[in-house]
């Protein structure tokens, strides 16, 4: 079980807990504004764009080409941008906070 917080663009902080699935599914199941996951998690829509904190970057595997290409020209893309549907929930993510990009 990992405790993960989502911070929305409006500054709302939503505390969640998850043990399996993707961070997109976790956000969606907790009704986090700005995370839609319209394509169901197949990296086709970029509606689950989040920013991870600089100190948490190493906790995630690098993005594949498709994810990078989807993000390159998205609104609010930074070097810390990821698509939450591509990030699996793991124990090692316990305590992190993700910022919803849009």
């Amino acid at each position, binding site marked *: 079980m990992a405790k993960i917080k989502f911070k929305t663009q409006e500054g709302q902080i939503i505390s969640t807990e998850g043990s399996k699935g993707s961070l997109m599914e976790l956000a*969606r*199941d*907790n*009704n986090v*504004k700005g995370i*839609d996951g*319209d*394509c*169901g998690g*197949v*990296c*086709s*829509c*970029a509606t689950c764009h989040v920013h991870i904190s600089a100190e948490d970057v190493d906790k995630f595997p690098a993005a594949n080409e*498709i994810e990078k*290409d*989807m993000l*390159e*020209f*998205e609104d609010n893309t930074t070097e810390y941008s990821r698509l939450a549907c591509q990030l699996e929930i793991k124990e090692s993510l316990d305590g992190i906070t993700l910022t919803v990009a849009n």
Partner: protein
Amino acid sequence: MKEDEICIIIGASHAGVNCAFTLRREGWLGSIIIYDKDPQTPYHRPPLSKSFLTSDSDVDDHLLMSLESYKKENIDLRCGITVTNINRNDRSVILSDGSVQSYDKLVLATGAKALVPDIIGIKNSSRIFYLRSARDANQIRKSCHSSDSKRVVIIGGGYIGLESAASLRQLGAEVTVLERDHRLLSRVTAPEMSDYFLQLHTAKGVVIGLNKNVSSIESQADFDSVICADGTQYHADLIILGVGVTVNTSLAEESGLQIDNGIKVDNRTQTLDEHIYAIGDCTNHFNFHYKKNIRLESVQNAVDQAKVAAKNICRKEAQHDTVPWFWSDQYDVKLQMVGLSSGYNEVLLRNKENDNTSFSIWYFKDEELLAVDAVNSPKAYVLGSKFIKGHKRINKSILTNTEIPLKPSLLIVIESKRT
């Protein structure tokens, strides 16, 4: 907003479920009740013809929202209940068990059902399947696994037909796709894309029959014969029909709402009754970008309209004004499409030499970019959406020159402002 207000949503798929959750996010304090005749907890439909068919996953692995989420947001999900009537005068609906439920706001998210084509013998066959619900997909999967010869005939060369073909081929089936038109995906893509998918499926061992108008199906003891108007016959252990949909408008129509190839709604997704909204596949709406009335069969449209309806119900001003997008996965090919290509007079191909695994097709009407189909080219898809939404003019010769990278700064033509 008051706590004693009731919002009823009819239909618990992508549109209905997203509307319910958005209502809560936008501050709806009253009750939310969703009815659906399907007893299954609402699930994602796109995987049904894709990863769901090829895996042994359960529909519970593809839920739109976990059951706990409905409880947490106090959304009353009532699956397995059909709404039989809408009484607009006293703002209530009648349910299949005879009970009556009143509403302050009503959202119709009734969707569409698979079209049953006029083919002789279609009703007598037990080997015919449609692909719309999880139950359909489960039956197809089961029937394919239990057949030794696994001869599958798919009627219809659209997305459902081709995605099913790819999935069943991966399960080792012998697959034939019969398309009435002279090319695949003729309703939605340019001939270049049709050719690409024809080659892709043929290379994977799928038999594609074009100009094949299926006229009858004869059921034998061990198989069905699918017979075309030109006399050709195909033996099938399993037949999948993917020839389009019929919109579920009867509830709306019987209650006197306006129907014209779908339930008519305005840009706030409101029907002619100020207390009734309609969203998703069942609606006919005006698209601001393309300036025409359209009906879309897509998850994205369902979700977008769901949000607009929810905001308006919460008395926040919101208008539905989006450029449609779609996606399809077949084998290891990711197809992403944005915009509506109808009315195009020029098609440009961006394709690196000797690369037949990734390319994009750009549809123009004169200088206006209408749509982009991107095969394994997410960047083309993302940029295409941006250009279309922003009405950007594109330098066509740079677009087709793959030596030059896809970058907005290189592609957008800056038009001099008239003074």
